[in-house]
């Protein structure tokens, strides 16, 4: 699903943020990306979302070479994935429904289709009935779930999440993580950047560890996988 082939990323005037990174996230796989702040997690996700371009190397998503995608085609690549942000990135002047509907409106779906899909998506994250509320009236956990509903409403085959539980208490974090597991079970590939090592170590998923731009670990938590 995601394949890094000797990827390096260097910002002007600094040393490599990522250096010679190679890895492959398979279709339908769920994995965590960990490391201290500054280890390169954000850069890693930004490369996949085409917010940054690699300085060297090749990057493939679903077989498509992202290093060759021209600027004007970038939006269409982004529509293939769902992205979840730590700070939710919701539009606070629009209702929950309108926020979740945004990816569908952007892609030009028909109105009836939009209503059906938004409801299904909100149902999945347990927010059905809050369509007409504004995000500001919701709790942090609920806002994050609106963000998740927006990321999955167009049924992407890849979900990217940047510290999705960063601001949530443990109970809420587990709840959110449960949602990701659900999506993964229906075949969505999921990549989650997180520094919540305690939770990650208790889940049976692949963990990629970044340190100063290098991939220093790629495996499963002890005792979670044969």
């Amino acid at each position, binding site marked *: 699903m995601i394949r890094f082939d000797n990827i390096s990323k260097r910002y002007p005037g600094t040393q490599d943020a990522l250096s010679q990174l190679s890895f492959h996230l398979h279709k339908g796989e769920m994995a965590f990306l960990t490391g201290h702040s500054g280890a390169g997690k954000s850069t890693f996700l930004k490369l996949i979302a085409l*917010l940054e371009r690699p300085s060297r190397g*090749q990057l493939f998503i679903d077989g*498509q070479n992202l290093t060759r995608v021209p600027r004007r*085609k970038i939006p*269409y690549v982004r*529509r293939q994935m769902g992205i979840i942000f730590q700070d939710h990135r919701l539009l606070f002047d629009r209702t929950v429904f309108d926020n979740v509907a945004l990816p569908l409106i952007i892609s030009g779906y028909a109105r009836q289709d939009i209503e059906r899909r938004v409801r299904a998506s909100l149902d999945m994250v347990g927010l059905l009935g809050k369509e007409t509320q504004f995000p500001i009236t919701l709790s942090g956990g609920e806002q994050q779930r609106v963000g998740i509903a927006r990321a999955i409403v*167009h049924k992407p085959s890849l979900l990217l999440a940047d510290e999705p539980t960063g601001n949530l208490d443990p109970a809420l974090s587990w709840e959110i993580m449960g949602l990701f597991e659900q999506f993964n079970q229906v075949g969505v590939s999921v990549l989650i950047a997180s520094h919540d090592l305690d939770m990650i170590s208790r889940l049976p998923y692949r963990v990629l560890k970044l340190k100063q731009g290098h991939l220093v670990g790629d495996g499963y938590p002890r005792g979670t996988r044969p």
Partner: protein
Amino acid sequence: MRPEKGARQGPGRERQNIGASRGARHSGLRGYFTLHLSMSIQSLGRLVRSPFATLMTAAVIGIALALPTGLHVLLDNLQRAGGDWDGAAQVSLFLKPHVDEDRALALADRLRQRGDILSVHYISPDQALEEFQSQSGFGEVLESLSQNPLPGVLVLQPRLATDKPDRAEILMTNLERLPEVELAQLDMQWLKRLFAILDTVERGVMIVAILLGVAVLLIVGNTIRLAIENRRDEILITKLIGATNAFIRRPFLYYGIWYGLFGGLLALILVDTSIILLQEPVARLTGLYGSNYRLGLLDLELSATVIGGGILLGLLGSWIAVGRHLSRIEPR
């Protein structure tokens, strides 16, 4: 999967992805119009939700459009009113020195019979001298002359059609052939001057119109720039989740169109109100000149031009602003 294979699959894959999801979407011309209709109504809704700010911008545009429109209407009316006044054209027939008053009056009578002459008025040499003395400032010089050097003059008002200027020429040659006549002079000087002035003013109005048109562009451009700044977060988020530049551009272009439309309508209201306010005094003024000319409201063509021009300027202004500012907002 081998990288080369993935690389070759790239573009085809993308096309397939885009095509695959299109089934559920708006398709064809109808879908396109539905999309644009809902887009335009949405942006109208946003404008209506902040009525004061919208009205202010529209008012500035309206005034900027009303000024050249009003001047144009004024000029147009003056030109048409001037066209009605071909009675103002005079022909002066300077008679030969030996033609006395009786012959002159007889000639005047004969001329009155002609169809192409409205009126004839005789000025005797004595009257002419008196008038000249009092008006020219040469009074003393003239007094020292032993004889009156001025000829008798017949002042005619020809019936001229403004659309047939050569008829005036024919009339003039006919008049000059009369045995009593020394010289025939068509006196349209002041009318010519009026039209020359109107031409100059027309050019001035055009310059004012261009300047104010540029002003409208700047006003709309700046308003749209602020709107873009205000919705910066929204633009970033929509770009992050895959909005194309065309999608992001669209509501701002509709803002421009709406501003232009409102400005144009406001300009029409301003100009027509001014005309209504002016109608009565103008009727009184033209009445003093023996004309029953009345100021008319804007006709359909000019109204359409004002509104169309407003919309065009609004669209162009927002296009420029969007082109300059939108590309600078990229998610990081």
